[in-house]
């Protein structure tokens, strides 16, 4: 599921995410910097080893929420384009779960908007993560960072 609006691109996908390709979708001519957040599957959380993750989304609502966040980011920050892709399904250790790229004329706004977007995405977008361990599995509730 994907959507383009203005210079922005958002998508949910079960395929591996190509970080460079997402980031470089947006190179507006008046910009000189893209800031990208690459979230990936960590092996150890609080000392416990994760075997793999499963991400599930309320897809139609998640796309709407991500679009809302991108539109809000354009209101709050002086940025030119945003590209957000979230992976769904089974993810191995080290694989990218989410990429958020922000292009802006000045890098400060790109940093701020990117950090705000990942914080808000983790707070409001209806996507859930299940951590699978050797001896069980658990759906994570809320941002545990």
């Amino acid at each position, binding site marked *: 599921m994907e959507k383009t609006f203005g210079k922005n691109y958002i998508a949910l996908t079960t395929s591996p995410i190509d970080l460079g390709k997402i980031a470089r979708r947006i190179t507006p001519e008046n910009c000189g910097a893209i800031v990208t957040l690459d*979230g990936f599957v960590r092996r150890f959380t609080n000392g416990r080893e994760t075997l793999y993750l499963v*991400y*599930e*989304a*309320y897809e*139609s*609502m*998640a796309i*709407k929420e991500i679009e809302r966040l991108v539109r809000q980011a354009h209101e709050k920050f002086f940025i030119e384009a945003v590209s957000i892709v*979230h992976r769904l399904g089974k993810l191995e250790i080290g694989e990218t*779960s*989410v990429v958020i790229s922000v292009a802006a004329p000045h890098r400060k706004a790109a940093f701020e908007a990117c950090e705000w977007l*990942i914080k808000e*995405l*983790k*707070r*409001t*977008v*209806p*996507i*859930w*993560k*299940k951590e699978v361990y050797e001896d069980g599995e658990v*759906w*994570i*509730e*809320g*941002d*545990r960072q």
Partner: protein
Amino acid sequence: MIMQIKVLFFGATADIVGSRELVLSLPENSKAIDAFQKVIKEFPSLEKHKLLFAVNEEYSKGEELLKEGDELAIFTAVSGG
């Protein structure tokens, strides 16, 4: 008059309910919170979790009136990213 709405579950709530989608019958003029409480009554284990819900893909506090065919989603705090 009775109306039917669709109830969706995801992640932890889908595991508890044992299904990702139910059809719920409710009296006309029920609010979202009424539907929510009806589901909770049927699956009390849901109450162990901090739950959020959405009506027609928008977060809801429960006060809106539902109409035939509406989609109520019940889920735990999100953990994407």
